[in-house]
């Protein structure tokens, strides 16, 4: 971390997005995480994605649980409301917030301890409900704030900094998200901004439960030899299935691709995802095949990354519940209170 206050001024020639905001308008407070922490790269990617999408910064609600990852919402989107809630309980708080106002963008930030250990239940249930959100797990396989204990995503056989070998099986949140019905599932690596930024961008544009597992090495406790979540290990074992380019409905497709290697996916809001397929046999619309692909590669010690599954026209929780278009928190007495006349009828029916 740095002790220097971040200067408020910026270069006048900084590029602006469609709303006239610069990159700086999407930043938050200075990070208090360790220098080199993977989480800070994810923060940077979120800032970049929101800038590129020209989101009004205050229309995002950032909600997190407890842990290093859950601290990061302070470090981006300084003009958004944030909620650092209870360990493992971000999904329920976010679900309630989303029900209250469907018009905001919900960004849930969690960690592997927060989502795979203490919060596994809430992780599962919010995905199966189809809450319209971006659910980012900053996954380092370790508890940082309490000094390096294994989390439930730590691979069996991996070694802690103190030399302890993990004997428990690991939980693969991506496989679970697929099984639970998340309508957008991706995995990326904090050290691969080229891959991560378009995935976050596409997840924000997605309507439904979008889950992104981001392997994010812990420089303090899980970046040593023997760890399977270190920078070196992930770089060596990364098996990327595709590279993504996000094209919002406002942008023309300018990028030229090799014919036959591109798959274009149109999302609910009109945005398009251009996928450069790296694994020729990989179909991002096949949930079952995705699970098989993941497990097949995991058995070989490979970490599959990229956009792994997307359901183009998913229905979210508000769709299931058939709620009104207006945010529930904006309804007044007139719309909510049936008044004495209805009560008279009710009383009469009870005599």
């Amino acid at each position, binding site marked *: 971390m740095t002790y220097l206050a971040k200067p408020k001024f910026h270069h006048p020639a900084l590029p602006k997005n469609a709303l006239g905001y610069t990159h700086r308008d999407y930043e938050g407070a200075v990070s208090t995480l360790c220098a080199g922490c993977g989480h800070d790269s994810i923060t940077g990617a979120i800032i970049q994605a929101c800038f590129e999408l020209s989101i009004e910064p205050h229309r995002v*609600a950032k909600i997190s649980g407890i842990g290093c990852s859950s601290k990061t919402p302070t470090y981006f989107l300084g003009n958004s409301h*944030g909620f650092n809630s209870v360990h493992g309980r971000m999904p329920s708080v976010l679900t309630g917030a989303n*029900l209250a106002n469907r018009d905001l963008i919900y960004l849930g930030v969690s960690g592997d301890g927060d989502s795979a250990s203490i919060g596994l239940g809430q992780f599962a249930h919010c995905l199966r409900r189809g809450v319209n959100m971006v659910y980012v797990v900053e996954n380092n396989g370790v508890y940082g704030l309490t000094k390096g204990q294994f989390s439930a995503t730590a691979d069996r056989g991996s070694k802690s900094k103190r030399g302890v070998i993990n004997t428990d099986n690991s939980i693969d949140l991506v496989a679970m998200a697929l099984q639970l019905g998340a309508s957008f599932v991706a995995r990326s690596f904090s050290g691969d901004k080229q891959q991560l930024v378009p995935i976050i961008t596409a997840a924000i544009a997605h309507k439904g439960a979008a889950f992104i597992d981001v392997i994010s090495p812990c420089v303090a406790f899980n970046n040593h030899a023997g760890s399977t979540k270190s920078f070196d290990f992930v770089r060596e074992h990364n098996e990327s299935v595709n590279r993504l380019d996000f094209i919002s409905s406002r942008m023309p497709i300018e990028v030229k691709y090799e014919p036959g290697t591109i798959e274009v996916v149109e999302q609910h809001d009109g945005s398009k995802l251009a996928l450069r397929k790296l694994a020729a046999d990989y179909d991002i619309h096949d949930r079952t095949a995705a699970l098989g692909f993941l497990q097949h590669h995991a058995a070989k010690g490979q970490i599959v990354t990229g956009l792994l599954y997307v359901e183009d026209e998913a229905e979210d929780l508000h769709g299931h519940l058939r709620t009104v278009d207006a945010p529930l928190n904006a309804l007044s007495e007139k719309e909510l209170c049936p008044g004495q006349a209805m*009560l008279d009828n009710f009383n009469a029916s009870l005599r």
Partner: protein
Amino acid sequence: MPTANPISSVNDFVVRFANVNGSGSASANEMFARAVMRMGIPVAPRNIFPSNIQGLPTWYEVRVSEAGHLGARGGTDLMVAMNPQTFDKDIAGIEPGGYLLYDSTKPLPASKFRPDITVIGIPLTAICNREYTDPRQRQLFKNIIYIGALTALLDMDAKVVEQLIGEQYKGKDKLIEPNVKALHIGRDYAILNLQCPIGLRLKKADKVGDRIFIEGNSAAALGAVYGGATVCAWYPITPSSSLADAFTRHCAKLRVDPETKKAKYAIIQAEDELASIGMVIGAGWNGARAFTATSGPGISLMQEFIGLAYFAEIPAVLFDVQRAGPSTGMPTRTQQCDILSCAYASHGDTKHVLLFPEDPAEAFDFGALAFDLADRLQTPIFVMLDLDIGMNHRLCRPLAWDDFKKYDRGKVMTAEELEAGKDFGRYLDVDGDGIPYRTYPGTHPSKGSFFTRGTSRDQYAKYTEEGGAYVDNMQRLLRKFDTAKDLVPRPLQANAGKLTKYGVIYFGSTAPAMDEAIHMIEARGHTLDRLRVRAFPFHSSVNSFVAGHDFVFVIEQNRDAQLRSLIVNECGIDPVRLVPILHYDGTPITARFIAKAIGDHLDKLKVKPMKVVS
């Protein structure tokens, strides 16, 4: 002839139905209670049921009281014993001179009965076997047949029951005729074969007035609808599940946009109570009115979140329909046993607002009020129901709403105020009442955003672990709690006709029993001033009430005198001055119990009665 004089009473007795759970008896028994009400006689039914779906014993007790006593009375004057499993115990519970109605299809030896009661046998099974071939019909119509017999035995107008059958099966009209037929099979059998009426009789009266007959959970849920709740997140738990069910039902009728058919509400059956309260807090944080309905074990699971909502100052409403604990305890029995676990819920220093409704009408009022209080005070509000209020039909005043009333959304800073440059400090006590302003997420592009956290922060919501800032904030939370004292419903005091040194404090579902007991206590020559506490934090009148009396009895339905502890702790009162009167066997407290406990206590203290009744 029985050895005791048969009880003779008009419009003042207790009928108890002993049935097997899942046999369809509940709706027939409820119809009987409704018929009594329709005859203009106040009635108080209570469902005593096991934690079971089918097969275990269940009872339905109907207290008929022209005088209007709606608390449980204790004892049974007429036992309708339809459950062989509990036959012996049921007979033992009949008052001397009471009556037994039983199925006499299979002859029973005289030793199965008591000499001091009137035994009335009807061969119900034989009648059903003769009349019906379908086993399910034999079972269901048996219930209606005994109701039919009761109309003759108690001298009721059968037309009242016929009308209720018509209303109950409206829309399923082909069920009306067979039910009416069954009713008359029973009635005719009784008229032809039995001495009708017995000493217990029902006579038309005009003592019901415009009162309604409703369960507390349904009324509380309707209060949530009227109070503007839009988000409900809950997890099934007896005895609170019917509150969420009722909210769902009320919303389907009252909260669907007539044009688009879309819902102006969102209800989530969560995966557990932690998620329920998390959703409520997320919705409250985001400016919607949200609640959960639960019982004691659910409150235990919600502890961590409740502390967050207290410290981060997020509105939330919790309906706690209390049941006997600890652990699974007696999940289908009533108690007032979560007072302390709610008042001080969570780790660290916390205090929460509790409301204590006495009946469904107040459950409606407080159910709606809770949302105004939650928004005004930016904190969790607990509506403390119990199984006795929540799951039983209770006669109460009609529900009323002021159409000119506006919701109190509390201190919320708007985009206009922020734009105009008004200083926004999320935890800044600008008005001296301990209540800061908040903003809803998404209000303004560059002003008014803040970070909500359970960690200590300064007045502008900036993270700090500096001791002074922490203490300031905790002190402000106390000031806010002080402000609440004048916002919550005040205690209601009823003074004895003459000056007395003794008082009694009670709350919630104890009210009808206490109202009745006071007459019995007075008849024993003692006088008492009464104070019904309706909320925590306690209004100053609780202190002055205790100060104004030598001794004050505190009546509660728990073992540990939890409200008494709360009064001692929060009002700084010498515990010796508060005498606990405790009833906690899972049955609703009765006037007989209260009158005896207080009467005996006053006698033991060698109190010289101010009035002796010969």
